[in-house]
């Protein structure tokens, strides 16, 4: 399992980096899907098979397909790719890079203070469901409202 975790983590990392430096939108999207799938593997390794399923189905499946549709509608071609390349000036990366570096440093420095190892125990779908439709019922309702709102907004925005 450890091996699974580290290898999937490495893949996720590489894929993600490829997303943000890629110039071709479709390539980037594919990398993103890879990244998401490897995160799903990590979930599995951490003993969260339900989350892994959802990650694969909803994220890598549904959401990315949505992206794909939109990209088809936009019909971005070679011109866009050249443009992207022109925009990728190294000087542009300095400021955000420094800031992100500091932020990462901060995260890491907070996280390294504890030393607890994970003994992945599978959390069953049943546990999740009991919690979800028990104490978190209200959150579910809110989430459904949010989705409804997103639906209406997306419909309104995308309409001509």
């Amino acid at each position, binding site marked *: 399992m450890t091996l699974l975790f580290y290898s999937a983590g490495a893949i996720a990392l590489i894929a993600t980096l490829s997303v943000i430096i890629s110039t071709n939108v479709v390539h980037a999207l594919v990398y993103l899907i890879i990244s998401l799938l490897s995160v799903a593997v990590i979930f599995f390794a951490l003993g969260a098979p339900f989350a892994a399923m959802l990650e694969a189905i909803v994220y890598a499946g549904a959401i990315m397909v949505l992206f794909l549709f939109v990209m088809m509608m936009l019909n971005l071609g070679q011109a866009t790719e050249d443009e992207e390349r022109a925009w990728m000036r190294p000087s542009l990366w300095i*400021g*955000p890079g420094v*800031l*992100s570096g*500091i*932020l990462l440093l*901060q995260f890491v*420095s*907070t996280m390294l203070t504890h030393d607890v190892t994970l003994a992945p125990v599978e959390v069953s779908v049943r546990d999740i469901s009991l919690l979800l439709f028990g104490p978190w019922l209200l959150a579910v309702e809110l989430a459904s409202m949010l989705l409804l709102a997103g639906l209406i907004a997306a419909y309104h925005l995308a309409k001509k």
Partner: protein
Amino acid sequence: MQEWTGLLPVFPLAGFLLLVLSRGRMSRGIAGVIGAGSVGLSFLLALGIAIATLNNGGQAYTTVLWQWMQVGDFAPGFSFYVDGLTLVMILVISGVGFLIHLYATGYMADDPGFARFFSYMNLFVAAMLVLVLADNLLLLYLGWEGVGLCSYLLIGFWYDKPANGYAARKAFVVTRVGDTSMAIGLFLLFSQLGTLNIQQMLTLAPQQWAVGSGIAVAASALLLGGAVGKSAQLPLQTWLPDAMAGPTPISALIHAATMVTAGVYLIARTHVLFELAPSVQLLVAFIGLATLLMSGFTALTQTDIKRILAYSTISQIGYMFLALGVGAWSAAVFHLMTHAFFKALLFLAAGTVILSLHHEQDIFRMGAMRRRLPVSFWCFLVGSAALTALPFTSGFYSKDEILLAALHQEHYGMLLWSGGVLGAFLTALYSFRLVFVVFFGRDRHQSHATASHGHDDPQAAVVEAMSPVMFFPLLLLGLLALGGGFIHVPVDAVFGSGAQEEAHASQLVHTLMILIPIAGVMIAWFVYGSRSYQKAGEHLREQLLASGIGRRLHRFWFSGWGMDTLYEWVFVRPFLTLAALNRRDAVDQIYGWVAQAARVGNSAVVMLQTGNLRWYAISLVGGLVIVIGLGVWR
């Protein structure tokens, strides 16, 4: 009659109101009748009051019209106090005033602002009567400011010429400086004595103050400030010559006969205070002396007929101040009265000359007018004789009294007397210079008029403008100027017995005082009048002017001893510069800086608001980094 005292200023005031409310729709005849008639009524009433009072043994009395206000202990009333001094003043004001009004109905007959003119004149008379009738200093101040306002309005009567407006403003502002001093004097008097009632003050002051004490000196000096402003004495005399911009009857009424003598009246009225402050009283004498000499010299060089008379007025009021300064209160009042007669006469005669010559005022463009303008000539001659104090004229008696009193001043008697006599010599010189230049010699007007206007019929141009309404006042004033010296002013009771013992002097002094004016007349005749000496005289004048010192002296005297220039540079220009520099309120600009700082801060912050989404995101992350950094690495 005495119970009607309150009506004295009411008649002219009513005239004023009628004329104002008619809004210029009244016919000239009615306006003239109202204007002059209201003052005439006042004069009749004043005469009645005077007779009644004198029959009563000159007993002073008070008439309370109403309580003006009552604030704590401060309770001035609208109340009039009548004694000998008041009687003299109201008779002079309403009498001379009436004559001048009458004259003005003729003089101003063609003026479009006829009704406005008489409304101002009536208001003036009302205010002047209030001034002299007031039983407290606050009411006196009301009249005091009222006459100042009317003086302003009348000097600037022909308002379309900016120069007149300037002269009017100058008159008002300069006298206002004096008035302010007087107002402060009022505050001081009230805070010390607890009353502004003149009679109470005159009783209380000697009880509370020692002779020469600081308060007495301060109070009388402040009142003196008011007096020199109104009476055009040094150092506030500069407004009077310019005030001649007004119509000539105004110059006669306000700037010769009545208003300018208000300062003399004030000092005479509050003489007890001045007696308590001998140093200030001496100052009064020296102010008078300096003024009379200075303006005498200046009058010698002037060429404008009215300005000469104006400087002579300043000079004669200087005599009155001299008299006040040496304690000859009644002599001052006497001279005030005679001066009112002969100076009004002179101004009115000058007005006739000016009107006849179509508003020509330069005496060197006149000449040989004695045949063309006989009435004016005789009036002028009488007036000048009285002004010069030739024997048996009114001026002789009053000036004689003043000079004798000056001689008897304790410490500086000789100095004051000889200054006064020098002044008398100058008076003779300038007044007969005027007479001889205007009425004798060559007719320069004709040649000038022909040259400048190309008149075909120059003879027709000079016809004496004279109507009965103008002739009658001239005649009466001429008689008064001649015989006014025999009037006895009933003021002994006012000034107490100590002030006026009969002055004795050696025969030499008397002779000198008669001869010196005559010598002045002779010299004037030699230089300006006599045909035989005229060449020599002109030669002499030219030589004097040619020499550097003579020319400079002439220019210096002509400019009124440079006082105008001095004030221009010391007060007017700095004020104007300051006003121009700070037109936009420095304080406002300080607040402007606050606003500016806010604006600059705003534009600095606006620069952050680029509208660039990535910039917003990066700022957001920057903020996040800082906040987390604060939490992690605290």
